[in-house]
Every structure is written in C-alpha cells, then in structure tokens.
C-alpha cells in the first residue's frame, strides 16, 4: 500500500472560484434558488386554485389594501437600508453598518406587526383555518365567515402563503439581529418572545407561533457560543441576500393575493 506524505509548510494552491465569488455567497444563492421554488410552488398552487374556482372571493376592502401597501413600503425601505448596511460594511464603517442593520430590522418588525394585526382582524371576522384555536364566546359571522365556509381554499392558501412569508421575515430579522449585535441579541430576542407570548390572547395563533422566537433563541445561542466570531462584510452581504429575497417574494404575493382579490367600491 502506497503512502503519501502531505506537506503542511507549502503555500496551498487553489483553483479560482467557478462563479467568481466566495463560497458563502454561492451557498446562499443556492439556498435562495431552492426557496424560490418553494414559494413558486405555493404561488402556482394559489393560482391553480383561483383558476379552477369560479366563485373565488374578492374580500379585501380598501382598508386591507392600504395596510398591505404600507407593509410593502416597509419592506422596500428595509431593502434600501440593507443595501446601505452592506455598503457601510465594505467601507469598514462598523457603526454605520450596525445602525443600518438595526433600521432594516425595525422596518421588518413594522412589517410583521402590521401583518399580525391584519391576520388578527381577519380571524376575528371569521376568516380562519380548522387548525387555529376557536374564538371564545361567539361564532364568527359576516362576510369572511361565509368565505371560509364556501371557498375553504381561500383561507388555506392565504394563510399558508402569507404565513410562510411572515416566518421568513421573522427569521430574517433574527438573522440580522445576530449579525448586528451577536450575543447581545439573545436577551432581546427572549424579551420579544415573552412579549409576543404573554401579550397575545390564548386563542390567537400568534400565542403559539411566538415559540418560534424561543426556538430561534436556543439555536442562535448554540451557534454563537460554539463558534463566536466577528461578522465581516461578506457575512453582512450574505445576510443581505436573504433579506432582499423576502422582499422579492412579497413583490409577487402583494399583487396576486391582495390586489387581485380587492373589492373596491
């Protein structure tokens, strides 16, 4: 059997990257491509349901459209602040980088809060899923209760699509928080978890959904304690790719789900 001695004192020679960039970035692009297919499949399922259901409801009044437009503005502005964070990081301006990342997170949190308020309003008006806890004391009546009974595909696809996107935005905010604040973000995340858990009624899906924040805090703690590091400009850029992706997906959800289901009188 032949033996090979591997020299350790010689400078390593590597082939240049096939894609002209570093591995982390290529890895993130591959993940985003696979995630695009996930959202693509769900958007196609939504469109399929809509084409095959002649009585597809158009329940969103002006108030919902205005709310969704403000949410869109929040996401678009967050993409701008994210780009500015990346720019600050490549210029080595750590303070500006952190401030722009925090601004991006603030816009993301604004989006999530508005979205959660809209969900709560729709659920209170009767648009619900069988897996959601029942509202106590009264049966839902009105337009949305009727929609949920006659076209159950509508709440299923609406909550499925927007819920998955909201989860992505939430994880994006956590990702940016870790990059911006590192270990200091963990107690902040736990405060968010407690506020979301204790601040929502027990019949709200967010009462249970808040535990995503706890799970994320555990995972982030493990990562940050096992492999502590100072995140450099490449980490900020890769985090930015993820953030822009959630913005990109919303550019299709907003017109397809909201604007095409608007009832403007």
């Amino acid at each position, binding site marked *: 059997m032949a033996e090979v001695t591997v020299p350790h004192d010689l400078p390593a020679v590597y082939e240049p990257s096939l894609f002209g960039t570093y591995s982390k970035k290529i890895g993130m692009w591959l993940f985003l491509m696979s995630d695009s297919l996930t959202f693509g499949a769900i958007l196609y399922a939504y469109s399929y349901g809509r084409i095959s259901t002649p009585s597809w409801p158009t329940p969103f009044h002006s108030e919902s459209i205005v709310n969704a*437009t403000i949410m869109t503005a929040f996401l678009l502005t967050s993409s701008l602040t994210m780009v500015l964070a990346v720019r600050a990081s490549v210029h080595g301006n750590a303070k500006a980088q952190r401030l722009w990342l925090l601004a991006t997170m603030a816009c993301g949190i604004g989006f999530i809060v508005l979205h959660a308020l809209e969900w709560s309003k729709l659920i209170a008006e009767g648009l619900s899923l069988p897996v959601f806890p029942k509202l106590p004391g009264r049966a839902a009546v009105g337009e949305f209760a009727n929609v949920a009974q006659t076209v159950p595909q509508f709440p299923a696809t609406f909550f499925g699509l927007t819920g998955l996107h909201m989860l992505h935005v939430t994880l994006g905010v956590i990702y940016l928080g870790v990059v911006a604040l590192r270990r200091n973000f963990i107690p902040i995340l736990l405060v968010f978890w407690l506020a979301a858990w204790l601040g929502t009624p027990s019949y709200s899906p967010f009462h249970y959904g808040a535990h995503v924040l706890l799970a994320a805090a555990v995972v982030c703690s493990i990562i940050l304690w096992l492999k502590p590091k100072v995140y450099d400009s490449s980490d900020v850029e890769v985090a*930015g790719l993820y953030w822009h992706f959630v913005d990109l997906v919303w550019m299709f959800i907003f017109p397809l789900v909201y604007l095409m289901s608007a009832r403007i009188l």
Partner: protein
Amino acid sequence: MEAFQEAIAERVAEQQRHHGMAQFFWVWGALLGMTAIEVYLTYQHLQPVRMLTILMGLSLVKAALIIGYFMHMKYEISRMKWLTMCALVACLALMMIFFPDALRILSLGVK
C-alpha cells in the same frame, strides 16, 4: 482555505466600494413608484386578465431591479448570472404545466 475565501471576499468588497450610492435610491424610488401604480390600477376596475398581465409585468420588473441592483447580480460574472437565473426561470416555468389542468376542471364543472 479560509484565507483564500477571505481574499475572494475582499476582492468582491473592493468592487462594491466603487458602486455609487445614488443608484440605490433611484431603484428604491422606482420600486415605490411601481407599487403606487399597481395600487392605482386596483382602483381602476380593469378587466381581470388585463389587470393580472400588467401586475405580473410590473412584478417581474421589480424583481429584476431587486436581483440586479440590491442583490448585486448585475455585477457578478456572466457565468454566475446566466447559470443561476436560467436554471431558476426554467424550473419556475416548468411548473406552469399544471395550469391547463385547472382550466380543464373549470370546463368540466368539477367542484
């Protein structure tokens, strides 16, 4: 290997230092403007198919701006641009194969 990756990352960062900041504000303004047009059209009671066509057209332009400028794809090398985007668009386009089935259900009246 780590040092090699850092060297590539530094080269990419050096390229990005030369990108002007104004273009990002222009792109952001264009995205907000197109969103405003979409909302305006919602209030115009257009025929649904025409409305869908315009909205999807605007969404594709917005997606291209986000990918090109905010995600820096415009500044990647050609191989990266073409391989990733062609693969993605091909996969998404292939999913359209199911739409004729939705129309079939509609014409058959299956509930």
